């Protein structure tokens, strides 16, 4: 019989666990041992409710339910999980923060905890424990998780937003791999459109895909909506360059992208209407799952977003932090659950079940076999390391959260690309909006 101590758990929780995920009774045994040795002892008769973003990949949710069941059996803490579309978690969390009544835990998007940092339980002990144990946090996760010196949320995972493209059509257009620079990207988009296989990226109010590519575009050209001191700097020559690039790219896209929300590019890609777009791995997962779409899965691949004139990656990926509300009666149970979720014996099988849709933000999990079992997933392994934060050069607090929620930059790009405003007017309007938010 194995005796589990904190030390053995720390040892056992390293990379080897990735390959030997516990299941069934073994998982329960491990969970019970973990519960006994964990620093956080749930309160007596504790019960938790969690509102999380609704899964994109069913197997991920199944694995998550198993994980929660193991936690309940080990600690006796019942956890009630509700699910909402990721855009709807924020309004509900906001109302809960305001009224002090609602779920104990929220697992949402981007800088959700920074909308109400004073309503989040201080989870510095959990974050420090996990960081030390699993090779440290990636830099952007630290920014998302911390408010001042305090961790107000545990950054659980990222959802990568990378280029999805059709292999054969790209080859036919003269590109054996996806362009690595923005200049090549324009040439690629032109060639693809010329041969009748255009692409498209969302310019409507698409929180994930829309914001994902326009922030990348802005940063790739050296533009920033604020500087390090949160002073608004959007009205700049660099932003104008980014706008011009986006307009040139928009001209080569399939018509209608100004109305696209997050779901449009998925269905257009799977219907052979577009041959390149920015997205998570969900298109590939959906194509693999459906025998009728298998050909698309075989003929598609993923690539990093091209590098712009500033010469380094400037990607923005979705981040999913989990936070506990201060109104909870069971803060220790919340912390125990957060730590439990992130332990390798839980986290590795769960992230594996997400099939590449989710990426870890603790460095030790790089070796999870999910990233190498299928080479088409490998680029998504690095999204947490490559991601910048929604605050750009500035803080990642509530102002950055408001700017991204209010689609200020997305509307600036859309108004210029669609010809509604010229570049100067589009920048001026965005500047005014940002001054309002950053006042």
């Amino acid at each position, binding site marked *: 019989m194995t005796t589990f101590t904190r030390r053995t758990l720390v040892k056992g929780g390293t990379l080897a666990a990735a390959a030997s995920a516990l299941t069934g009774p073994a998982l329960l045994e491990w969970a019970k041992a973990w519960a006994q040795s964990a620093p956080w002892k749930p309160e007596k008769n504790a019960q938790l409710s969690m509102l999380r973003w609704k899964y994109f990949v069913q197997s991920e949710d199944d694995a998550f339910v198993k994980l929660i069941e193991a936690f309940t059996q080990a600690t006796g803490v019942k956890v009630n999980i509700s699910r909402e579309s990721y855009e709807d978690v924020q309004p509900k969390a906001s109302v809960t923060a305001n009224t002090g009544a609602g779920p104990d835990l929220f697992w949402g998007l981007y800088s959700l905890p920074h909308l109400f940092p004073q309503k989040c339980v201080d989870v510095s002990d959990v974050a420090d424990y996990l960081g030390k144990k699993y090779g440290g946090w990636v830099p952007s996760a630290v920014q998302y998780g911390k408010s001042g010196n305090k961790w107000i949320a545990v950054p659980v995972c990222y959802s990568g937003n990378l280029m999805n493209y059709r292999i054969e059509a790209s080859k036919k257009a003269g590109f054996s791999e996806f362009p690595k620079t923005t200049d090549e990207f324009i040439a690629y988009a032109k060639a693809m459109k010329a041969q009748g296989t255009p692409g498209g990226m969302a310019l409507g109010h698409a929180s994930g895909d829309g914001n994902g590519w326009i922030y990348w575009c802005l940063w790739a050209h050296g533009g920033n909506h604020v500087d390090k001191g949160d002073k608004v700097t959007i009205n700049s020559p660099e932003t104008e360059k980014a706008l011009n690039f986006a307009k040139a790219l928009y001209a080569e896209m399939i018509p*209608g992208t100004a109305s696209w929300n997050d779901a449009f590019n998925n269905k257009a890609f799977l219907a052979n209407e577009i041959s390149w777009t920015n997205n998570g791995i969900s298109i590939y997962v959906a194509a693999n799952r459906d025998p009728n779409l298998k050909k698309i899965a075989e003929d598609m691949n993923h690539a990093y977003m091209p590098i712009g004139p500033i010469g380094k990656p400037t990607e923005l990926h979705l981040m999913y932090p989990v936070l506990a509300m201060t109104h909870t009666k069971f803060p220790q149970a919340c912390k125990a659950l957060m730590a439990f979720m992130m332990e390798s014996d839980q986290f590795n099988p769960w992230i594996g079940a997400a099939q590449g849709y989710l990426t870890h933000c603790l460095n030790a999990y790089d070796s999870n076999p999910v990233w190498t079992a299928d080479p088409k997933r490998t680029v998504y392994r690095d999204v947490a390391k490559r991601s910048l934060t929604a605050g750009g050069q500035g803080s990642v607090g509530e102002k950055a959260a408001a700017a991204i929620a*209010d689609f200020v930059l997305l509307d600036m790009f859309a108004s210029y690309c669609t010809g509604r405003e010229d570049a100067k007017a589009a920048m001026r309007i965005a500047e005014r909006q940002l001054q309002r938010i950053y006042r």
Partner: protein
Amino acid sequence: MTDVALDKAKPILREPGAWDRLKVNRNWLSIWFMLPAAAFLILFLAYPLGLGVWISFTDARIGRGGEFVGLENYEWLWDDSVFWLSVFNTLLYTIVASIVKFAVGLYLAVLLNENLPFKAMLRAVVLIPFIVPTVLSAIAFWWLYDSQFSIISWSLRKTGLIATNIDFLGDVWNARWSVIFANIWRGVPFVAITLLAGLQTVSPSLYEAATIDGANRWQMFRHVTYPLLTPIIAVVMTFSVLFTFTDFQLIWVLTRGGPVNATQLMATLSYQRAILGGHLGEGAAISTAMIPFLLASILISWFGLQRRKWQQGESND
């Protein structure tokens, strides 16, 4: 002895006290009868409204109460092009949709008031758009308006009328007309059925008298039907304008206010700024800015369409 007995039997009459008088006072009683309704209105209508107006004068953010900032939120809105665009969109949306809903609704009501075959069934069918949940009909329109998969575009392309798909929700004006059309489709049954109920209260003897006077069908409509319908038109159009002005679900499902805020209404902008962006004060200011428009529409309906004294129980001048 007899006197003593009579004295005993005599009831003791005392002057009624204030409480006795109050107990039978009709005004006092009516206050108590009205109290539950008043409490309900104060708690669920007046208090939230007052709170909303108060929040609009603060810098409240989600999760923390705000400080009083006077008119600062309104000053920022005054200089905010997106806010003014949302005002324009809301007015356009409300005016166009309400006029068309009234015209089509009235036409349908007059039509359904005739002796048609399958009359009951036709009346039930007309109600369908109204009973389908808004979100479901919005999703149906979302597919109809899809830039790649729209069946409208597909049909027109197959018949050779257009070469490329119609960009229903990606083009600024296309998007505006598309959401207005969806709103009209949803709102017409409410107007039609309510006006139909009004039409059925018009006494046939009035039409008989008009026929004897030699009135044609238009004159009968203009001088008999329309005047008798005005009270119900006032009510139905007030409700219709209020529902349209404060519409949220349809826009949120179809466009989320896009493209480039072309379909951003005051209600959606208020939600976006307050709940998604976290600026409760500013969102409340946008909501409060809707009040004058709503009041104006109610006043126009009541004083404009209900100006006839006989409708208020008096004789006409």
